């Protein structure tokens, strides 16, 4: 307990620092202003050497006495207050609970401090960036929406969790997986396979793919949450596991892969500890339908949004490699996208028995 209190003081100090800005500005009759790094494409750059998306130094000012910003400013102070309360009580909480904790009707008015969670979430992200505190450090957790199975043993709150003895359900990845919360005791796998979809992860888990190919299977059910990404990164870094990514063949699948590999635009400041620049794209590639003789009728026509998104991706610096340009172009030319699930057209176990074995044998992946 005492050790933890010591660690949190730093974050708490930073939070109290916000109050000091207000007090000092008021003392000097100045408009209280916070500096908040901009979280947008305009303020990120791709570091090719490191293979990471990095945040630039552009900042926006958030001042109290500006009609457009006054409410956001007030909300920022309220959220900071709630976060410091968490620190003092040494509790973790969810984004939604923070929203409820800070919501009330302002005295003498009909106005609520927050109307929806959509207003409080970005404020929390703003604080993460401007205080350079990680969400975990702020004691805010996301939902547990990841599963892991395979020859790896964790220590979680003193319990020994052997992921090879958890049936087909596996271990539910907690939101906060920092070493002080989750310890990796042993890992004998040869590689890590990160699957976009829970359904395909289930398929592989049920078929005991991990046992045959001695790997760890990890899924984030769609866009992987921080916990999953951070755990993959730790296994990659600490256990030297190569990471392979298996996603649908559509622009959103490509982007999921790129987030795992280089980090996201919104949370570029966290790439340092989340991104896995050496992750490989296993599939589905737009070349696979031909190579694996998937019939055209299991494809889905690209809609306008898909096409627009694909073109956007092609302009991202980290997709500029010729292989990737070709990959995306091929999808656009065919006009079709394919889901991982469509492999079931050939055989229910096609993914386990044919597709992945052949991919691994041929080392057919993109970097």
């Amino acid at each position: 307990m005492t050790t933890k209190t010591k660690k949190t003081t730093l974050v708490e100090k930073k939070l109290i620092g916000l109050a000091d800005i207000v007090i000092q500005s008021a003392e000097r009759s100045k408009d209280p202003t916070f500096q908040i790094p901009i979280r947008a494409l305009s303020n990120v750059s791709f570091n090719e050497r490191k293979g990471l998306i990095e945040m630039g130094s552009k900042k926006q000012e958030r001042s109290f006495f500006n009609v457009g910003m006054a409410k956001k400013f007030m909300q920022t102070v309220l959220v900071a207050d709630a976060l410091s309360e968490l620190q003092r009580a040494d509790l973790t909480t969810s984004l939604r609970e923070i929203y409820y904790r800070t919501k009330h009707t302002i005295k003498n008015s009909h106005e609520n401090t927050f109307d929806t969670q959509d207003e409080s979430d970005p404020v929390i992200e703003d604080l993460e960036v401007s205080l350079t505190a990680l969400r975990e450090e702020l004691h805010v957790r996301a939902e547990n929406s990841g599963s892991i199975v395979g020859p790896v043993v964790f220590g979680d709150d003193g319990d020994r969790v052997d992921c090879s003895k958890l049936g087909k359900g596996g271990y539910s990845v907690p939101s906060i997986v920092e070493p002080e919360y989750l310890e990796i005791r042993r890992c004998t796998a040869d590689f890590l396979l990160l699957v976009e979809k829970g359904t395909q992860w289930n398929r592989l888990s049920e078929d005991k793919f991990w046992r045959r190919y001695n790997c760890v299977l990890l899924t984030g059910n769609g866009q992987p949450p921080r916990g999953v990404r951070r755990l993959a990164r730790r296994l990659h870094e600490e256990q030297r596991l190569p990471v392979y990514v298996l996603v649908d063949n559509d622009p959103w699948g490509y982007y999921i892969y790129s987030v795992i590999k280089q980090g996201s635009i919104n949370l570029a400041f966290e790439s340092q500890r989340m991104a896995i620049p050496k992750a490989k794209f296993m599939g589905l590639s737009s070349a696979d339908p031909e190579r694996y003789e998937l019939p055209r009728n299991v494809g889905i026509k690209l809609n306008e949004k898909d096409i627009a998104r694909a073109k956007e991706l092609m302009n991202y610096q980290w997709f500029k490699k010729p292989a990737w340009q070709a990959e995306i172009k091929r999808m656009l030319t065919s006009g079709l996208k394919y889901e991982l699930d469509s492999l079931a057209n050939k055989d229910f176990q096609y993914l386990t028995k044919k597709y992945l074995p052949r991919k691994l044998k041929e080392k057919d992946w993109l970097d």
Partner: protein
Amino acid sequence: MGKRKDSASEPDSKSSAPRSNSEPAAKKPAAAKAAERVTAVEMGARQREISVSEFFTKNRHLLGFDNPRKALLTCVKEAVDNALDACEEAGILPDVTVNLEVVSNGVPVAPSQANRFRVTVTDNGPGIVRQQIPRIFAKLLYGSKFHRLRMSRGQQGIGISAAGMYGQLTTGKPVKIISRIGSKAAAHFFEVQIDTKKNEPLVHENKQIEWEQPRGTQVTLEVEGKYQKGRASVDEWLEQTSIANPHVKLVYKTPEGETKEYPRTYHELPPQPREIKPHPYGIEFGMLLKMLQDTKSHTLSGFLAGDFCRVSPQLADEICKAAKVSPEDKPRELKGPVAETLYKTLQETKIMAPPTNCISPIGEKAILSGLYKQIKGEFYTAVSRPPAVYRGNPFIIEAGLAYGNRPQDQNKPQQPAMPKAEGEHEEEDSELARVIRYANRVPLLYQQSACSTFKAVLSTGWKNYGLSQSRGALPGGPMVIFVHMASVWVPFTSESKEAIADYDEIQKEITLALRECGRRLGLFVRRRERAASEFRRRNIFELYIEEVVEACNRLKGGTLPKQKLKEQLQKIATSRTGGTKTDQALGKTGGGPEGLPHSIIVTADGVEGETALATQVESDQGLAVPPAEPDLLGDTTPADEPASKENATKKSSRTKHLPKKTTMKSGQIAIRAGESKAKHPSKSAKTAAPRKPK
């Protein structure tokens, strides 16, 4: 000839079709012809005169009796129109009572379920002389208004007798009339029906009775009808009537037993419209021929100068010369091509527009007072256009606006702020404006989209005036748009007088009037928005300071000198929002109604603009505000003193901060100017001269 051949060959081909073609079919058609043929003599025997009453019995929809609901409205409308026309012509401020009762045979019926009603309309008008009563109420096309060009509600002399006929047709009951022409005369009671074949009245009952009213007329009709509130109802019609006729005191007893009173808020009768002679541009050829026959003049030039308006003897001679006829010709002998030439010449000659004193507009003040009385809003304005002419008929367009939701009265307790849950928002204004239309002061409730006024409202670009408007739709927002056309002859699209026909001249005038209203509204809306945004700016900071200070205090572990921080922040807020300058702006929200003539602005603090009117309306409605005599005269207090003694003592919050300067404009002297002049002869002279507001 061709027609006959066709009809002959048709049965032939039909009858022969099923048979073989080889058989000659010559004899068959002859037989068919014989069966169908009617001789001219036989036909002649069937041809006879159709009486107007018979015609309208069969075509009652032409007169507005299409369905029971509309029929009930038409009956009320015709009786009230007659009452108002009579009162105004006699120079009497009208007091009209409308009583609508359910007629049931023993078993009481709910008004909404009933199908038989008794309509009783009582006025304080001049009464009707005994001999005329049967014909006025039980003879179609009988009346005083058809033959002259003068503005009045009724035009053809069909209305009330048609209503009586409708009652007779649906319930079999006669029309009952009580009329008295003065306190010294006796009151006469009549029961009349109409002989639909002859279009003549049948008198059932005729006696002298005791009547409590010294003067006036009461009509009772028993009709089949349906009473339903809402759009195009009797209730709506009466309410709208009261808006356009603020000089009328109207009492309405609903079938549900409620009594609605529409007080008189304007104490002057509309000026008497003069009767005019037809203008040459306004007549058709047939009409000219008839006038040539009917005239009393013996010479053509005398006829032209005497029977038309705006034709002087010289001009008459010129016209005769141009038409190549002698001015000395006898009008009666002018026929055929010569008359046609004369007609064409008349149309081509440049003749001055007809005089306009034959129409009496409602007037900006009266419209304002009507709107203010009946519609709760924040902003009112009214425009009377100068007279214009279509087809030789002079007309005047008037338009008005009532906009916004009236701010809550201050003495009313404010509702406690209810915390809002996620997804709950302030109620949005998605309602569209409402158009109320009038012709000669009579509300038009049906066929809105066919009406020239409605089309003009749609084609006006309300977006320019700060309102929302979708393509081809009414503008959005809480607003009532008032349009009135006054004319000696309103061109309706049908006999039931529901929509005004689409003449370019009329459309143009309406559009101009609406634009002027819109321009003033735009000014008001923009001013209000500016003030509101300043107010909001200030308010936001004040609200949030509290939150920020509390949160900072908690962050600092509750050790903060809260009050000090709050004061420091408030000081910054004040300096950032324009300080005292803003205070002034906020104190006088709209900055007064300059540039907004004939307008009323209602704010939480009071009424601006034609304050006298507003005060008038309120005192008439018994709102505990005495008629503000000192205000009307305006020179009892210095102009720049914000709250005079008189104002401070007033009870109504709305009139607390009457901006003095507005009451000083000469155009805005109260309606009761006559009265106050009598009381303060010396002072009223001063007010006549306009003073510049400081």
